[in-house]
């Protein structure tokens, strides 16, 4: 179990979801003659002028609006994503410049499939918990791509969240502890210069998603002496609707506990942003004293589990920026042809 010397929490949080939605029925219409079920209702799609940089900037500004701190006091800006716009050239420096955090700041891009955002949070807890820096901005954001016709095309979505990690005495929610479970498990990958990822089909379930999440979750609860019933909310990585529901059930959480953070049905899988944006939706409605359990999952593979306790600062601060459901409600439905244009699936030259 990882627990810093000084207590650390979330000083500000912010979400971002682009406004376009591709209904799963459009993917079914194009690739399966309209027949068969779908893993989500619809997914969020970035517009032509949006990418991981622009979405990270907006989520970061929302986190700063809630925290009302001087961005010059941020000591690190870390952006976790598998869709950084440049292969070489940091996303994080652009975000840091846009929010006014440069120049005395650590800045790096993290990559661990869907776990890169929670990895940034754990690293931020380390920096703040050691006293090296007062605030760290940790972001999980993606414009995920699925191969046309592949099962991932239903779910690979755009969006994510930013968290300002800082001292517990300024926080809206305090980290009680975190614990990670990581192994070399080849369930999903994308090779260099390749546009779309490959995956191990059913292998992505039992030995990957369920194994890592349940082990990290059970070990953290055991070391904390906690039970699922001690938590008001739980949120897990959401590659589809069913997996987080099933893993919650396996761990002993009820559907009431996971409902608030379960966004995959209406925005899809936002990869590095997935469990993080679920947490923002929970913070949008949680009450002081509530405990929140969060477990991310990234292919390749690993999970970070977190236990949080909400403070009374949350009520005042959450109204300072748009709620996650404000972004979800800002919905413009598109058809598959518009989706193909917006996600650059048309060869123009």
């Amino acid at each position, binding site marked *: 179990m990882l627990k810093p010397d000084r207590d650390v929490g979330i000083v500000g949080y912010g979400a971002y979801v682009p*406004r376009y939605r591709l209904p799963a029925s459009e993917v079914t219409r194009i690739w399966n003659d309209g027949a068969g079920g779908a893993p989500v209702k619809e997914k969020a799609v970035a517009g032509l002028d949006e*990418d991981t940089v*622009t979405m990270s900037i907006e989520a970061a500004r929302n986190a700063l609006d809630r925290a009302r701190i001087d961005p010059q006091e941020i000591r690190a800006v870390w952006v976790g994503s598998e869709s950084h716009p440049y292969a070489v050239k940091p996303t994080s420096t*652009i975000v840091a*410049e*846009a929010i006014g955090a440069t120049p005395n700041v650590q800045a790096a891009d993290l990559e661990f499939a869907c776990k890169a955002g929670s990895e940034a949070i754990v690293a931020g807890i380390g920096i703040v918990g050691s006293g090296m820096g007062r605030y760290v901005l940790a972001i999980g954001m993606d414009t995920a791509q699925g191969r046309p016709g592949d099962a991932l095309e239903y779910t690979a979505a755009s969006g994510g969240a930013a968290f300002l990690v800082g001292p517990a005495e300024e926080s809206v929610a305090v980290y009680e502890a975190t614990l990670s479970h990581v192994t070399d498990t080849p369930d999903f990958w994308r090779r260099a210069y390749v546009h779309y990822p490959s995956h191990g089909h059913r292998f992505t379930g039992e030995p990957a998603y369920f194994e890592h999440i349940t082990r990290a979750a059970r070990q953290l609860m055991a070391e904390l002496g906690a039970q699922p019933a001690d938590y008001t909310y739980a949120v897990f990585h959401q590659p589809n609707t069913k997996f987080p529901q099933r893993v919650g059930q396996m761990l002993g959480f009820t559907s009431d506990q996971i409902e608030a953070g379960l966004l995959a049905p209406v925005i899809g899988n936002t990869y590095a942003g997935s469990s993080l944006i679920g947490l923002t939706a929970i913070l949008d409605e949680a009450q002081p004293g509530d405990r929140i359990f969060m477990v991310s999952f990234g292919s390749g593979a690993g999970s970070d589990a977190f236990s949080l306790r909400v403070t009374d600062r949350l009520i005042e601060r959450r109204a300072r920026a748009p709620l996650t459901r404000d972004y979800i409600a800002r919905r413009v439905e598109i058809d598959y042809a518009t989706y193909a244009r917006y996600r650059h699936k048309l060869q123009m030259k």
Partner: protein
Amino acid sequence: MSIPRNWRTRQQRYSLKAEVCNTCGNTIFPPRDVCPHCAEQKQSWTNLSGRGEVYSYTTMYNAPSGFEEYTPYTMALVKLSEGPMLTAQLTDVDGNGVAIGMPVEMVTRKLTQDGDEGQILYGYKFRPLLRQAV
């Protein structure tokens, strides 16, 4: 845009970093050496709210080089609440519902890119207020 110009103007493009004239008190955007209102030289940095309203607009169907991908798109003269007027693209509007006087807010978006291998240019655009758009 050349690499030096992109670099030199990054803060005003990403976050509307502006100046206030120490002599006449007017807000100046984009930042410059001499105040366009009183011709004095002393200015201080300021951050703008990003809020404003559409003064006028037009829809682009024939775009200049580098912007073809985004057609049709809407260009607007935006009158900022602090006073300056600037030209910017409107985003998240899809050509619908734009009107003179419409309140807008600044967002940082991708402007263009220098081919498949060159730099990506980010900068300010304006969209309808998020909370009114819901």
